[in-house]
Structures are given as structure tokens and as C-alpha cells.
């Protein structure tokens, strides 16, 4: 029983409880930021314990942190802290304009840590049942974040998000039940029967047909939460309507956590049926995601939806990396996950600032020349765009290169060629959109002096996030690299132990 794991879950829960209760504003802001900072520190401590050679576990192995868990845990903790700090700034800005009621503040401060709690529970769960419950909790925690601004469109987005998410989860539940059924009574009794490690132990004896059906349902179910095409349709709506701090939690946190579930299922399938079955499924879904995202980025009309489609592209890239069936590609996928988690917040924070300044994220309303209106936010957005389109010298260029190289050397050169072509078009589309938005004369020079770009907590967070993302491209700390390698090892060697 490792108490660190328990604390890592208790701290965000307590933070959520305190945040949801009315109180002095300043006190609650301190609690949120402090609580999430402690949570992140605990995640790092868990990763530290893991890197020193013990595998922390609790509740009879129901929670267990191996290399894959440790990586996702650290990334989710990081995103939680970042979005918490930015969230406080975001709320202050909207408060200054009288857009925030006490109820909204309670919701926001309660739901953000609750969401982080659910994400962390996903990433340390070794039990397929708890995994499912935790993913459902993430969905429920984020619904009211999507409706936060209470517009017609945010209700629509929340409805689609919840219906599609619940359907995906029903599929994932059926998948879990079928995986359990494929054990035909060999899994034993009680909680331990649904442990991922237990399933890995008996993998060779699982009933093949039942398992196949289960894997398909579970991959589609969790793939829906990850936003893989063709189950991606909730994503642009939800990202477009959610406030940027929640958007970041969904785009980086939820995506990593959902991929974590996908990978666990993939590994069971790999151990029992060989790498081809779920590998080719991942490859297909991944390629489809990249291909679907491409045209929508080129014709996009809304800033936040642009980011959502970029996010669909990236989850596709990671799925391709995992599905190619080469160790280097798996490593590339985890490297990509890390860099994506670092770069995505910058784009959301910058886009959020621009959208708040203009009161909309519709391109038609923003017009052109945001650089004249909001130089810092626009510069950050351009920087983020350069990073998330995978341009050198930033991290995602290297991770994409590693995946592409492994693809061309491996068994799927044609798929890799299509993938590369899509990436090129995506790059051009994104650069075109950003150029159109940022360059040119500002819409109304008088506005610039009337309400200048804010320099507050939100902007500070965005700048810090940008610095971290840039530095990480040239220097990824040794322990971080070790975590990525450990995660790769779990995927590549099956990692039952």
C-alpha cells in the first residue's frame, strides 16, 4: 500500500470540495492553485519512486504505477496545475467584465480539480473496472465546464458531447465485460479478476473470438473519448464552447488519459492475439483521424475549433505511432505525447486571450491583424502554431520524424506516405489560417488604446508555458526521458511485470 498514490487522489478531491463551497475569493484562488501544485508535486514524487525501481501500488494492486502510468500521470498533473493557474486568471478577467456569477465561480473552482482527480485516477488505474468508472467521471466533470458560458451553442455542444461520450462509454463497458468473459473463469474471483496485470498473465489462454469482439468495442469506446475519427465529432463543438482552461484539460489531459486506456486494451490484445489485430485497428483509426482533420483545418472559421481539429490530428499521429508495430514508432508516439502536452496549453492560452479580447473566436468577427491588437498573445499563438504543426527545431518535428522513419522502414510504407502527405497539407493549412488571422492592419486602431492587451496572471501563465515548451525542445530533463523510455518498454515488451 503506497500512501503517495492515495494522497495524489485525496488532494485534488479536497481541493474540489473547498473550491465548490462559497468563501472569500482570494482564499479559494489560493486553495485551487496550491492544491493543484501539491498534486503535481505528488505526481512527480510517484514518478520518482518508480524511477528508483519500485512499482508503487495501492488497494491490492487496483492502483499501480508502471512506466506508462507514470508518464501519463506526470503529464496530467502538469496540465492540471497549468490550467488551474490559467483558470484563476481567466475567471478574474471575465469577472472584471461582469460576466461571472457566484454560481459560475463555484462550478468552475469545483469542477476543474474534480476533473484533474478523475484524470489522475484513470492514469494510475490497473483495474479495467475502475478505469471505466474514472473515465465516466471525467466525462461528467467536464459537461458543465462545456456549458460554462451558458450560450445556445454551448448547450448544443454539451449535449452532443455527453451523448456521444456516454455511448462510447457504453461500448467501452461492453468491451470490458467481453474481455472479462473471454477469461472463461480463469481470472478468479473478486476485484483482482479485472486487473490489467491479471489479464496479461492469462492472455495466451483467453478465448479468441470473445476477446476480438471485446477489443473492438473497447477500442471504439475509449477511442471516442480520445477523439479518434470517425468518433471525433463532439470534439470541435466541445473545445469551441468550453472556456480555454477546461479546453486545455480536455485537449491534453483527457486525450492522454483516453490514449492510456486505448493502450492498455491494445496490450492485452497484443499479448493474446499478436500485434496485427489491434495494431492495424489503431493504424486505421489514426490515419483516418489525420485525414479527416486535414480539410477542416484548411476551411476552418473558428479559432478554438481550429485547435480541436489540430488535436484530432495529433491523437491520430499518436495512434499511428502505436499501431505501426515498431519500437521506434512507439517511442516516437510517447515523445509526441510529451511535446504535445507541453505545446498545446500555449496555443489554448494564446487563443483564449485573443478570443476574450474580441469577445468571440469566430474568424469573421476577429478579422485580421490581431498582431496589432494583441502583440504578445498573437506572438505566442504563432509560436504555438509553429510548434504544433511540427516544424523544426521544436519537439514535435522530431517525434513525427521518428514515427515517419519507423513507418518507412517497417511494414507500412504506403500508409506512411499518405500520412506524410496529409501532414504537409495540414502544415500549409494551419500556416495559412494563422497568417490570415495575425497579419495585416488591425480592425480598429482606436480599440488598441481603449482596451489594451492584459498583462495578468493568465498572460503570465501563457508565457511560462511557452518558455517551458521551447526549452523542452532543446533540453528534455533526464528523468522525463527515462519515463518516456519506460512507457515505451511497457508497450513493447508487454510489461506484465
Amino acid at each position, binding site marked *: 500500500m503506497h500512501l503517495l498514490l492515495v494522497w495524489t487522489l485525496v488532494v485534488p478531491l479536497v481541493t474540489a470540495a473547498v473550491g465548490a463551497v462559497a468563501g472569500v475569493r482570494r482564499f479559494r484562488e489560493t486553495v485551487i492553485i496550491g492544491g493543484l501544485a501539491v498534486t503535481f508535486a505528488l505526481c512527480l514524487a510517484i514518478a520518482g519512486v518508480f524511477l528508483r525501481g519500485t512499482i508503487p501500488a495501492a488497494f491490492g494492486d487496483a492502483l499501480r504505477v508502471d512506466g506508462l502510468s507514470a508518464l501519463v500521470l506526470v503529464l496530467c498533473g502538469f496540465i492540471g496545475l497549468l490550467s488551474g493557474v490559467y483558470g484563476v486568471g481567466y475567471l478574474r478577467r471575465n469577472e472584471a467584465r461582469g460576466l461571472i456569477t457566484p454560481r459560475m465561480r463555484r462550478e468552475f473552482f469545483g469542477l476543474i480539480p474534480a476533473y484533474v482527480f478523475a484524470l489522475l485516477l484513470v492514469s494510475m488505474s490497473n*483495474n479495467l*473496472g*475502475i478505469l*471505466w*468508472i474514472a473515465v*465516466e*467521471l471525467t*466525462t*461528467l466533470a467536464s*459537461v*458543465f465546464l462545456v*456549458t460554462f458560458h451558458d450560450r*445556445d*451553442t454551448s*448547450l*448544443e*455542444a*454539451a*449535449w*452532443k458531447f*455527453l*451523448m456521444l461520450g*456516454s*455511448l462510447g462509454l*457504453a461500448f467501452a*463497458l*461492453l468491451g470490458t*465485460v*467481453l474481455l*472479462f*468473459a473471454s477469461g*472463461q*473463469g480463469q481470472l478468479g*474471483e*473478486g*476485484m483482482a*479478476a*479485472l486487473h490489467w496485470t491479471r489479464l496479461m498473465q492469462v492472455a495466451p489462454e483467453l*478465448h479468441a*473470438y*470473445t476477446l476480438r*469482439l471485446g477489443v473492438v468495442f473497447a477500442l471504439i469506446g475509449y477511442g471516442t473519448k480520445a477523439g479518434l475519427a470517425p468518433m471525433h465529432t463532439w470534439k*470541435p*463543438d466541445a473545445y*469551441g*464552447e468550453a472556456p480555454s482552461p477546461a479546453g486545455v484539460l480536455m485537449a491534453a489531459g483527457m486525450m492522454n488519459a483516453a490514449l492510456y486506456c486505448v493502450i492498455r486494451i491494445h496490450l492485452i490484445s497484443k499479448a493474446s492475439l499478436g500485434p496485427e489485430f489491434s495494431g492495424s485497428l489503431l493504424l486505421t483509426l489514426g490515419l483516418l483521424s489525420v485525414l479527416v482533420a486535414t480539410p*477542416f483545418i484548411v*476551411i*476552418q*472559421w*473558428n479559432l478554438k*475549433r481550429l485547435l480541436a481539429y489540430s488535436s484530432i490530428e495529433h491523437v491520430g499521429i499518436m495512434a499511428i505511432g502505436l499501431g505501426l508495430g515498431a519500437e521506434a514508432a512507439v517511442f516516437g508516439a510517447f515523445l509526441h505525447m510529451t511535446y504535445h502536452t507541453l505545446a498545446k496549453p500555449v496555443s489554448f492560452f494564446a487563443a483564449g486571450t485573443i478570443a476574450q479580447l474580441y469577445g468571440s473566436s469566430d474568424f469573421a468577427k476577429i478579422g485580421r491583424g490581431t498582431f496589432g491588437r494583441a502583440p504578445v498573445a498573437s506572438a505566442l499563438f504563432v509560436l504555438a502554431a509553429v510548434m504544433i504543426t511540427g516544424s523544426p527545431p521544436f519537439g514535435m518535428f522530431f517525434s513525427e520524424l521518428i514515427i515517419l522513419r519507423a513507418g518507412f522502414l517497417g511494414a507500412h510504407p504506403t500508409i506512411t506516405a499518405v500520412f506524410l502527405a496529409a501532414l504537409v497539407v495540414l502544415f500549409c493549412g494551419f500556416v495559412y489560417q494563422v497568417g490570415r488571422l495575425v497579419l495585416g492592419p488591425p480592425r480598429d486602431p482606436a480599440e488598441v488604446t481603449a482596451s489594451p492587451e492584459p498583462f495578468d496572471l493568465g498572460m503570465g501563465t501563457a508565457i511560462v508555458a511557452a518558455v517551458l515548451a521551447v526549452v523542452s525542445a532543446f533540453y528534455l530533463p533526464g528523468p522525463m526521458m527515462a519515463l518516456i523510455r519506460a512507457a515505451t518498454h511497457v508497450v513493447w515488451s508487454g510489461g506484465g511485470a
Partner: protein
Amino acid sequence: MTANVLILCAAGMLVSAYLMVGQKALFTAIRLYGVQSLLLAVIAATIAISQNRHDLFVTAALTVTLKTFLIPWFLMRVIDRIGIHREIEPFLNVPASLLVCLGLTVVGYRVSTGFPEGGQGVSHHLIGIALSMLLIGLFLMVTRKKAITQILALLTVENAVFVVAVGVTSGMPFIVELGISFDVILAVLVLGVLVQRIVGRFESMDVSRLSKLKG
């Protein structure tokens, strides 16, 4: 005897799903869901008796409390409050829908033959019916316009999953089942709140009006 009860109840669940497809009054559809859940509870209780597995009694009790009483009561309250009682013309008319569902049942039964028990015995029927219900639920979800019907479709899918869980495997670990039930009730509450907000905003719970977000 046990086998007959199980097959009878499962068949009853399938019939309730068909009736839901042919139904436009929302109250009746909700009651059908309640009956369907009651049958699910009977299945769980029957297995509990015949295989001497006491944890399944708790599952049965939970199912009756939550799905036969609590959720239908809550959904009816939502309907009462917003005062909309009938489904409007679906995207596909009822006779055609029923025909499609018939096809879906065949598909469900066909898929179920691959399981270890093969094409015979109780579990063949249970899986076949569960998969048909799953497909019918999906079909309802894409063809109906009222928010409440979509929730019922989702809950039907959920029930189908539980038929597999209870009838085919030797039962999921109890804590997991408890957590899942809790999550389902939470999801229904959240959905209910959303429906009320949608009606308050659009003065209709016709979800086909939710179509502003594109591209």
C-alpha cells in the same frame, strides 16, 4: 426451468425494446424501460438462485431500485415539468424502423454464435438478445429527435451491456458493478439537467434543432 425463465425474461427485454421503437408517447416509453429493467433484475435473481451466487442478489436489488423506479421517476418528473409528452415523427417511420430492427436482431444472433458456448444453450440466447438490443438502442438514438427518447435509447444500450455482464460472465466484481451503477445514475441526472436547460433555452427538446455548430 432456470433456462426457460432466463430465456423468457431476455425475450421480454427484446420485446420491450421493439415496443419502444414503435412507441411515440414518452410516458409509455419510459414505463417500457422500467419493465425492461425489471426483467433484467429477474434474470440476475434467477442466476443468483440457480448458481448460488449471493452477490447477484445485490445486483438485482440495485437494478430494481435504480432502473425500475428511480430513473423512470426522475425522467417522468422532467417530462412533467417541461410539459412535452409525445415524440414527433421520427426520421424513419415506424414500420420501416421495425423492419430494420428485425435485421439488427438477425445480425446480433449471428455474431453471438462465435462465443465459446456456440450456437446453443442459454447464453447463446442471452448474448444474441443483448447484441440485438444494443443495435436497436443505437438505431433509436440516430433516428429519434426528442432528447428523452435519446436518453432512453442510451439506457437500453446500457441494459444490453448488463445482460451480457450478468448472464454470460461469472459476474463482474461487485465493487465495479456498484461503481458502474452509481455512474449511470449520475449520468442520467446530468442528462436530465441538460434537457431542462435545453428546453428552457429552445422551448423544445427536439435535439434536431441543435444544429448550429458545423465545420
